[in-house]
Each structure stands twice: as structure tokens, then as C-alpha cells.
């Protein structure tokens, strides 16, 4: 993409990401339950993936050669449901049913509920393993699809992440990309105090992964980096995305407090005003 086209596309996607953030706040407010700030922080990356980078077709959600997406940090699923709805996989009105009895929008994503869900996640770490299996399957089928997995930075505490990383390197899975949502916060506090995992880049490099870095809120940077990740076919790629947990709602930013808390009506109104104002 040339610079002008990229800049124009980035602006369009920024507007969609704003909508996505509104729906995340709206869903969690409606449900009075769910993970709000992890979704806000990942909204720009999710928009880039589902509206630009991934080869998908909402009208043909089970298309054999489609790119696969694994929300390994499954708790962030309000943003996954919202991006699928905005992309046309199912009606936007259904977003209001999050976490209700009988809803397809379960508390964490499950294969076989709404179209567009490729993996069952929520048990941290297991998304990474499933992504490895999907990449192996893509190779077996002779398909050229890419498997994208979004991981939390707290999630990489899980030993299975490193088991999966070793396996991906063994099989030189050039069709596999992990994106680590590096917001620096996990449930009980700052990642580096709960379980220091730095240097994350050198850990993945030591596992024979290609490592790329991006600003997870700079749409042009996201688009460029994800394309580079897709184009690299010699082995697995880990993209470390610097993000702000709760991005877009000032009082939810950079705190663990809003990891799994629902806003009351007053907080909801303030959040929506900020998000609407922010994309004027």
C-alpha cells in the first residue's frame, strides 16, 4: 500500500475501531459483566485484522482457505463478538445478549456458536496450542492461510505457551503469527510484579521465532507490521504490540481495575461520551 492510500485506509479503520470500542462498552454495560478494558486495548488490532489483514469472507464463514483467528486471551471476547458483528457475521443487535442464558455469545468464545469463531478459548495458553494445530492442518491441506493468535502479555506466564512456541519452531510454521497484546497489566497487577517475563522479544527469538514490534494503536503501523508478519514465511512470527489497556476511555486506561468490571450507568454515559467525542 502506498503512503497516501495507507493513511486514508488507516483513518477509515480508526473510525471503525471507535465503533468497536462503543460496542464493547455497551455490551459489558448491558450484561453488567464481562471484560471491558482488555477489549478496548485490543480494538485497533482487531479492526485491522478483521477489516483489512485477514483473508476472510463473512458470507462464507467456513471457507476452507480462510485465515484463522484464535483469541487466545479469550476473556477479551466482547471485542471479538463486536468485530464479527460489525463485519457482518451476525446481527449487531445480538451483541446485547452477551452472557445471557440461551445466548450464542458465551462468556468466553466457543466453536459452533456464532460464525467466525475458530477456537474455543478462555483457558489461557490453550489458544496458542490450538493455533499451532491449525497451522499444521493448513500445511497438511496445502492451504496458504495464515493463523493469527492474539495473546495476552499476562497469558505468556503459562508454560504451554512455550511448549507451543517450541512446536511451532520445530515445524517452521511460517503460516503462524502470535500477536502479544503488551499492555503491561494482568489481573492482579503489573505483569512485571506478578510474573516478570521480560525480555519477551528475546525469549521468542531464543525459541527461533521472528519477532516484530508495533504500536498497537497506530493503525498505519499495525497494518504495515501485520502485512510483514504475513509475508514472512520462513517460520513463526511473534508481533509484540505495545498497547494501553482500556484505550479510549480515560478512566479505564492503564489500570487493572477495569479488567473484569462492568460500568454503572453514570460511568457508561461518561465512557460513551468520550468515545463519541473521540471520533468526531
Amino acid at each position, binding site marked *: 500500500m502506498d503512503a497516501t492510500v495507507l493513511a486514508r485506509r488507516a483513518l477509515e479503520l480508526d473510525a471503525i475501531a471507535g465503533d468497536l470500542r462503543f460496542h464493547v462498552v455497551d455490551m459489558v454495560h448491558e450484561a453488567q459483566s464481562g471484560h471491558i478494558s482488555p477489549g478496548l486495548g485490543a480494538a485497533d488490532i482487531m479492526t485491522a485484522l478483521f477489516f483489512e489483514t485477514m483473508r476472510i469472507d463473512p458470507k462464507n464463514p467456513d471457507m476452507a482457505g480462510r485465515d484463522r483467528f*484464535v483469541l487466545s486471551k479469550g476473556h477479551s471476547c466482547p471485542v471479538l463478538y463486536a468485530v464479527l458483528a460489525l463485519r457482518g457475521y451476525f446481527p449487531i443487535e445480538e451483541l446485547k445478549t452477551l452472557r445471557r442464558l440461551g445466548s450464542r455469545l458465551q462468556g468466553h468464545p*466457543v*466453536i*459452533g456458536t456464532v460464525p467466525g469463531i*475458530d*477456537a*474455543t*478459548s*478462555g*483457558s489461557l*495458553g*490453550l489458544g*496458542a*496450542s*490450538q*493455533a*499451532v*494445530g*491449525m*497451522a*499444521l*492442518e*493448513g500445511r*497438511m*491441506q496445502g492451504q496458504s492461510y495464515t493463523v493469527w493468535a492474539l495473546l495476552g502479555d499476562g497469558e505468556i506466564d503459562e*508454560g*504451554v505457551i512455550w*511448549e*507451543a512456541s*517450541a*512446536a511451532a519452531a*520445530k*515445524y517452521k510454521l511460517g503460516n503462524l503469527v502470535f500477536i502479544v497484546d503488551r499492555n503491561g497489566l494482568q489481573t492482579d497487577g503489573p505483569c512485571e510484579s506478578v510474573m516478570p517475563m521480560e525480555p519477551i522479544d528475546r525469549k521468542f527469538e531464543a525459541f527461533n521465532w521472528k519477532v516484530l514490534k508495533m504500536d498497537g494503536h497506530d493503525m498505519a503501523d499495525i497494518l504495515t507490521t501485520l502485512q510483514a508478519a504475513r509475508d514472512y514465511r520462513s517460520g513463526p512470527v511473534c508481533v509484540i504490540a505495545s498497547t494501553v489497556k482500556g484505550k479510549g476511555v480515560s478512566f479505564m486506561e492503564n489500570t487493572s481495575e477495569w479488567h473484569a468490571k462492568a460500568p454503572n450507568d453514570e460511568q457508561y454515559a461518561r465512557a460513551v461520551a468520550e468515545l463519541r467525542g473521540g471520533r468526531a
Partner: protein
Amino acid sequence: MSLAQAKHATRRAFGGRLLERAADDASFVVFESDLGKSSLSNMFGDAYPDRYFNLGIAELNTMGAAAGMAAGGRTVFVAGYSVFLTMRALEAVRSVICYPKLNVKLYASHGGLTAAIDGVTHQGSEDIAFMSTLPNMKVLVPADSVSARAACDLALATPGPVFVRLMRDPLYERYEAAETFTIGGSKVVRPGKDITLASYGDIVFQALQAADALAGNGIDAEVLDLYSVKPVDAAAVIASVRKTGALLVAENHQKRNGLGYDLAALLLKEAPVPFDNLGLEDRFAESGDYFKMIDKYGFSAARIAEAAERLLLKARPRR
């Protein structure tokens, strides 16, 4: 009745059948975690290297990756020791395989105390409890080569997750090649009228030998092979106890949450009769010879026969 010595263990029969099926069925693959020489999945790996994935000593990732591949429609057999597949990787089996009903089949060698000499860390003595508790999971435990081959075919033919528990060492052969097996089925391996002895896997042979010993004391025992531990053939169990009036379950497993507990609940609801069950008494076993071990821990032929006599004495004191 004398039992025919087996040439091969059930793990060998199952692995051999998988290899045969691979020739005309390209739909499945095998995942292993560096125990291929023990599970004997290496036979498959040698013949079909492109369909064999050895993911190293990392059972949790192996199970998760199996789910990922199965999500694309492929059937994945995950081979290994029962204790590691069902306990190290339990949560993956539960949440990303059973929950979304994926076609992942657990090819679980060294079930129960059949890894006896290796000691407790390698004995899958709680595997049935874990697997049969999971919704959508089916549990098969073949006793001999013919039924182990059939379990392989059933696992392939049945949608969703299936757990097959296999034994390390050759024991005996019971079934003719033409015998048929079904999910939810069972076999009356010895008809009788005085007491029902129910078991699965290796302990079926102990029950048969116990029945022979009981016959010498004038007790005509019926022996059921409940090779489909889940779903269990409840109708066959009820029909048998309505005839015999007593049920003794023996299994190479913890008593707690094993087949005995399942059938006790069934009988209380449907057909209350005098009942007892044999298995590990809420304790771990140890290293040792398999036959001495199953005797010491209470589910050899001799222990089954004693328990049957005790049960009948309690049930019919004037007998």
C-alpha cells in the same frame, strides 16, 4: 475354562489396527508426546511420517494442538500413557475438546495398574473417573486384541471425543475375529444365574477365572464385559441382575468414581440388589509384578471369588 494367552498387548493391537486403517483412510493423524515406543504409536509414525506429529514431552500442548487440528475437520488420535493424557492434559481435554465435541481420540496406553512395575507416577488408576465425568466423552476399555481393534474402528467411526484405555502387557485372548462391538454395548462372556460379575479390560479375565473357581463351589456366576464404560450398557446390567439377584463389580481403578460407583447408582434407581465393588481403596498402589499387585490390591480372580461368596452369604444367609 482355560484362557488363551495373548501374543500382543491391547496397545499393540490398537496401534496395529490404526496402521491398517490408515492405508485406505487419509482422514486421521496421530499426535505423540515422546512415548511412541511405549504407546507403540511409532509403528504409525514409521509408516506415515507425514501424518505423525511428535510434539515432545509436552502433553498439554499436544492436546491443545490436536484440538486445533481437529477444529479443521480432521480426526486426531493422541497417543501416550493414560496418566499423562488424562491428568496432565485434563483441562485441555475438557475445555477445548469435549466442550466443542471435536474429533480427538485418546489412544491411552498403560491404563490402571498395567504399568505396574513403573510405580504410581505411571499408573493411570484414576483415568476412568476423569474421562467418564466429562460431558461428550465416550470411554472404551477393550480386554483383548479383537476388542482393541474394534475400539480403534469405533473411535474412528464415532463423532466426537473417545477415550480408549489400553494395557501395556499381553494377557489373554477372548473374542473371535467376527465378534461385533458397539458404543454402549457389552458382552456376556460367561452366562450364569447366581451372581453377576461385571468388569472391563484386563479384569474381565480375572472375573472369568473367579467364575471358574466359584463353579467349583456350586455358584454359577455370570460375567459381563462392559467394554463400553461410558455410555454403559445399563439395560444389559439390569437384565443380568434381575436374573442373578446380585452384582459384584471389579475394576483396575480407584473404587471411587469408577464403574462400580456408576453401577451402584444405577441399581439403586432401577433394580436394587445386593452389591459390592472391588478396586483401589482410596489409596495409591506401588511398583511390582502385575499379577501380585492386582491380588494385593484386591481385584484378582481369588479376591473376586472371595468377595462373591461374601456377597452371596450376606444376600442369602441360609444358602
